């Protein structure tokens, strides 16, 4: 057969698939950017982050029927992504790239701002993972303390303390360098 779809699909089946595809495409459109950024900050490597995002969305497509509430999509995808990341670590420990070696294309207007961003970027990458992860959930996805606690299965007070320490550490380091 030359065409890509099965000739024997009944209209209702192709309707279901179409509906599933529409839901999936909406997820990709709305969330792929932030999901990629989160993956990037988790692994600090563009290519690895891209791979994890591919795996995440592949799993999302396969188990899309289990996502009942669209509002939970963000948390659902993050959970898949974290699992994929952990799985990769089980398979092999990859070399992490030093942030200074990565050319980051994120050009922001204003030389001063850009310098500050570059500085901060390096500092953020050097935060320990237990601080970096809740911070990224906060600044990329706009999660509040409670949502982060649910996502990471931590106590809310622990999350608030980690967020404070993460921000405090970054701020101190920035202030010192200025």
């Amino acid at each position: 057969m030359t065409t890509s779809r099965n000739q024997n699909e009944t209209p209702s089946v192709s309707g279901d698939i179409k509906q599933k595809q529409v839901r999936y495409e909406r997820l990709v459109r709305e969330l792929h950017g932030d999901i990629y950024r989160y993956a990037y900050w988790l692994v600090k490597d563009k290519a690895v982050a891209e791979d994890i995002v591919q795996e995440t969305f592949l799993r999302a497509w396969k188990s899309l029927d289990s996502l009942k509430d669209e509002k939970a999509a963000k948390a659902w995808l993050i959970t898949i992504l974290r699992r994929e990341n952990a799985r990769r670590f089980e398979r092999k420990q990859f070399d992490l790239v030093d942030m200074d070696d990565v050319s980051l294309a994120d050009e922001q207007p204003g030389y001063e701002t850009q310098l500050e961003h570059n500085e901060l970027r390096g500092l953020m990458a050097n935060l320990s993972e237990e601080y970096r992860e809740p911070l990224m959930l906060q600044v990329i996805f706009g999660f509040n303390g409670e949502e982060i606690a649910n996502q990471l299965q931590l106590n809310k007070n622990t999350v608030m303390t980690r967020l404070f320490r993460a921000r405090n550490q970054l701020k101190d380091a920035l202030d010192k360098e200025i």
Partner: protein
Amino acid sequence: MNDAEFRQALLVEPFTSDSTVTDKIEGNAELEQLQSEYQAFDKNLRETAQVDVPEGLMASLMNIPLQQETVDESTSSQSEKVVPITSRKRNNFVQLALAASVAFALGLSFTMLQNQPVVETGTEIALAHVYHEADYAMQLDGNVSLEDVNAKLATFGGELMAKFGRVTFANYCFFEKQKSLHMVVETDFGKVTMFITPKDLDRAIDNSFSDDKYEGSSWSMQTADLTIISDKEMKVADKHEKLLKHFRFSA
């Protein structure tokens, strides 16, 4: 809330609306200054986290369902050959149903083999897609955004310059094994089908062609080929070329 707790809460959420924090700040110039400093820092953090998303990532994620469909089809056709009836507990009805489905699959493959032409030209494949999708893609009344269309076109080095009609369907398909893009566009002169195919297409598409129901035209662009097909009754083959100007293909 003591002073340390207050500073901690403010640094973590400098835009907070929590009244225990905001009440303390109100009217206190020093604390207002501290809040705006923390707010600027928060903004800086959020901006820094916004690293660029790789070009083409969205398009390749959008393609996952189609890839899976291909994988599923190949694995399901393999598994049809081996129908394990391992459990003796299966009742006769299940066995009968399995036997019937195997017979059906065999019969179907036989019919498909009988009907399958030995070699199809690119033109025949394009027309086959149009016939095959007549009840599906042509009937869909979607509204694919320019951004989505361009994410898919980018795979072929193409770009739709501005929306010239309503793109009601845009999905990847396969010409034999070569990934192509199948679009349906509602233009000023009616719904037309478009195919964007790779330049190295194994089976060439004729520059101009028709059969009993459809007529089509095909152009070789810089990075891909573009084919437009419309219903003969619309009598718009001479207008196909007008649509080219909306596209740009570059390496």
